[in-house]
């Protein structure tokens, strides 16, 4: 039995039953991470991880029960773990140490997790390739000449390369799903508010969510149950009880109504993903699902809508990084204006600056109605369209990306082409609905492609049932 061949659920069970110790499992993964440091998936392996693992072994011996008892976990570098650095892959926060635990970290610790490393990302989660990290580019787990996607590229690569059984990502416009697709793993963006954002460094507060990235669908369902739930520190976190997501996995999709969007039929024409997308629909139909053609007429406006709302919120959220308090202060600053100006000029990377400027522009007096207000109205319209679409079907399927992972550097100097990476994923963020990406099909270079399954608010259970069905029974098609 090799440790990295075990699923998260199997691993948790074996550690709980004391067939494996947390120490040996954690050590195994740390060693493997060190072996594969050339992937640059991780920014730091926490020094005290093995101590924590030993401590968990003691506790387990003494009768501790927890869903993640002794299980090693990787977090994205924008999630706060008290006493550990959280830099958001930015020079500005290079040495920032979290002063408190985020809700998701606290929930995982309560369940006994050994959080052992923090993963590389695009600076402040802005990007789709992890090339925007201030500390270096993460490689694709399956082809080191290619990007891992982003912004949770480090997390997805770590899971894809078997460096951890599970990693957390955050998803503002596709930042969990797109890298999951590129690294051949499973990642979900839950319903907006399902997982608390408390202690997660904010980029675009109204649309982003934390979610798990795992090797398979059942692990993902298992993990989301740990992360989800209301937090008294977060008004926007939902109060609805968290279900046992695994119980939704029934191995049957015969009564399922699967929606396909007219707009996607158009959009996929000629893309690498076209064939596997069509295969997915074929597979679902062959297995008894009813295929419903539906529509979100404003689908093509999701991208512009996102690139107004997200930068607007980002510009405000990132204001606190000003060189006055905890973020790095420019050494040359002579007065307060210079502290702001020089610290921010030196501290932020190019893409972050671009979005700050965009955000300031769309919020400025004189432009506010034409941009920000219009985008918010459009979002409302899209939400209405989404409701109508989900009245006709249980899930909607669509591709995660246009094709397989692109070469490192291929989109340098072409931000718009990079923004288009999120074409298929942004819809779920704008609507606030849950969406998963699972591996399905292969691109021209044999690299994985992803299939998204999207459901109405709080229907993660349905998503997991469909995703698991495709994962376990769709073998033939999924390999194509």
């Amino acid at each position, binding site marked *: 039995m090799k440790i990295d061949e075990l699923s998260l659920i199997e691993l948790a069970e074996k550690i709980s039953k004391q067939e494996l110790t947390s120490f040996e499992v954690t050590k195994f993964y740390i060693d493997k991470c060190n072996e594969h440091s050339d992937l640059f998936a991780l920014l730091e392996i926490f020094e005290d991880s093995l101590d924590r693992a030993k401590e968990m072994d003691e506790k387990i011996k003494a009768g501790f029960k927890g869903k993640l008892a002794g299980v090693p976990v990787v977090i994205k570098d924008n999630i*706060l773990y008290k006493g550990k650095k*959280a830099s*958001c892959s930015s020079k500005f*926060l290079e040495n*920032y140490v*979290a*002063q*408190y635990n*985020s809700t998701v970290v606290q929930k995982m610790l309560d369940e006994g997790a050994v959080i052992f490393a923090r993963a590389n990302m695009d600076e402040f989660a802005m990007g789709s390739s992890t090339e925007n990290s201030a500390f270096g580019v993460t490689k694709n787990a399956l082809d080191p000449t290619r990007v891992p996607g982003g912004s949770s590229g480090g997390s997805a690569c770590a899971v894809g390369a078997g460096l951890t059984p599970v990693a957390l990502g955050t998803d503002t416009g596709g930042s969990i799903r797109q890298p999951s697709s590129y690294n051949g793993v499973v990642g979900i963006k839950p319903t907006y508010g399902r997982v608390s*954002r*408390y*202690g*997660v*460094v*904010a980029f*675009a*507060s*109204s649309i982003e969510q934390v979610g798990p990235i795992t090797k398979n669908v059942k692990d993902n369902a298992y993990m989301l149950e740990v992360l989800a739930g209301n937090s*008294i*520190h*977060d*008004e*926007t976190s939902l109060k609805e009880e968290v279900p046992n997501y695994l119980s939704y996995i029934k191995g049957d999709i015969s009564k399922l109504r699967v929606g396909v969007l007219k707009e996607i039929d158009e959009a996929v024409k000629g893309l690498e993903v076209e064939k596997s997308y069509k295969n997915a629909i074929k597979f679902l139909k062959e297995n008894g699902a009813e295929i419903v053609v539906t529509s979100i007429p404003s689908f093509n406006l999701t991208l512009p809508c996102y690139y107004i709302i997200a930068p*607007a*919120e980002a*510009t*405000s959220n990132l*204001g*606190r990084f*000003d060189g*006055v*308090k*905890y973020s790095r202060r420019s050494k040359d600053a002579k007065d*307060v204006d210079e502290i*702001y100006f020089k610290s921010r000029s030196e501290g932020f990377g190019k893409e972050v600056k671009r979005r700050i400027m965009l955000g*300031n522009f769309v*919020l*400025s*007096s004189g432009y*506010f109605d034409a941009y*920000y207000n219009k985008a918010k109205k459009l979002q409302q319209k899209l939400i209405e369209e989404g409701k109508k679409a989900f009245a006709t079907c249980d899930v909607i399927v669509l591709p995660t990306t246009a094709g397989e992972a692109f070469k490192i550097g291929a989109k340098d100097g072409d931000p718009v082409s990079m923004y288009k990476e999120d074409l298929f994923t942004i819809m779920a963020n704008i609507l606030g609905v849950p969406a998963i990406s699972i591996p399905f099909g292969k691109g021209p270079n044999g690299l994985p492609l992803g299939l998204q399954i999207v459901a109405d608010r709080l229907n993660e259970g349905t998503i997991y049932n469909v995703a698991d069905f495709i994962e376990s029974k769709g073998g033939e098609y999924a390999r194509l």
Partner: protein
Amino acid sequence: MQDYDIVIGLEVHSELKTNSKVFCSCKNQFGQEPNTNCCPVCVGLPGALPVLNKKAVELVIKAGLTMDCEINDIAVFERKNYFYPDLAKAYQISQLVKPICVGGHIDLENKTVRLNRIHLEEDAGKLVHSTAAIGTLIDYNRGGVPLMELVTEPDISSADEAVEFLTKLRQRLIYAGVAECKMEQGGMRCDVNISVKKRGSLELGERTEMKNLNSFKSVYRAINYEANRQIEVLKNGGKIVQETRKWDDNHNRSISMRKKETSSDYRYFPDPDMLAVEIPREDVEALRKTLPLMPEELKARYISEYGLSEYESEILTRENHLSDYFNKTISFYNNPKEVYNWILTEILSRIESSENISISPENLAKLLKLVENKEVTRTNAKEMLSRIMENGEEIEALIKEYGGGVDETALKALVENIVTSNPKAVEDYKTSDTPEKVFRWFTGQVMKETKGKANASKAEEFIRELLNK
């Protein structure tokens, strides 16, 4: 000055009387060691999120109800973005498009001042300018303290009216339990917008703003200075520039700070971390029921029900602590005029603030009853009051000392003794045209002998009995 009208609008910030801050559970408390009353939320650490203190919303609704404001069904919090070191998040959570209260008014002696709105926002921290070597320090304790901002329409036309308005506003907020308005602690701060125009002209002049005036005196002086300055500029053919001016209280002048062209664009937008606040009608009505009478209403009641004069009622309602004290006292001893007299002559002279009156309403009522029943003399009661308030003595011990100290048998014997040893006076009583005068001489003798401790009405009864034999 007679050729010009002065047009003034006020923006008044008052710190709300809540236990905790507006978006976190830190205490809402003044005067602690710098940066000891802070948490991730109020110092704006990465990842921290605001959670609204509902009590603060209730207090703003209450404030609005005392001024006839309309309460919005839905209130929305927005971010006001600007950079300043005391503003930890680089934005202040405030309200713009949908504040909690809109409209409303406060009536002055001679006019009505309309309100534009009242909204809820968070206070910022404080810069502390230290020595040159240390530089400027930041204390974030005040960051996140709930503030209500009230904005008037430009209905005020003089410094006197502005001060009258602020006095009435302050009274209302204190009476309603909304704010303590401790000016010296920055608990109430006022921005003044002022412009002047040719008398009777319909066209408004260019306005200037003076921020953060923290006493009524500063408001008064700043308005007079700035109105005169503007009039002088116009008279000399100059133009007023729209700008923010700093009021310098020490030198009694205003100084230009920031012209409009360089002012901030606050880039307001709804705070995505916060839910819109729904305010159901039932909740508003329930809050209305908890409101005490406002000073004007109390005053009217004192005049019509208790027969106090305008002036007397005014004195009692100036401070809520005093009217509370008065109301409580008369609930134990229903003689408003007498209670008023004692408060005015005996109590107000002995206290600095009506917040802490060192004799309880119950005990004052007890004392006044003793006087009414002649169990102690007025003079002794005053002495007792003084000893209670100044030495903190117990009323029960003092009653033993001053009143009912002589038992009936002893008193009777004493009266007999005085009557029999003064036959001349007894004769006078029987023959005099003014026998009551002689009678009072006898009671005086008894009181003198007993050092005022005798029950006066008992003594009178015994004396009359013997004299009329």
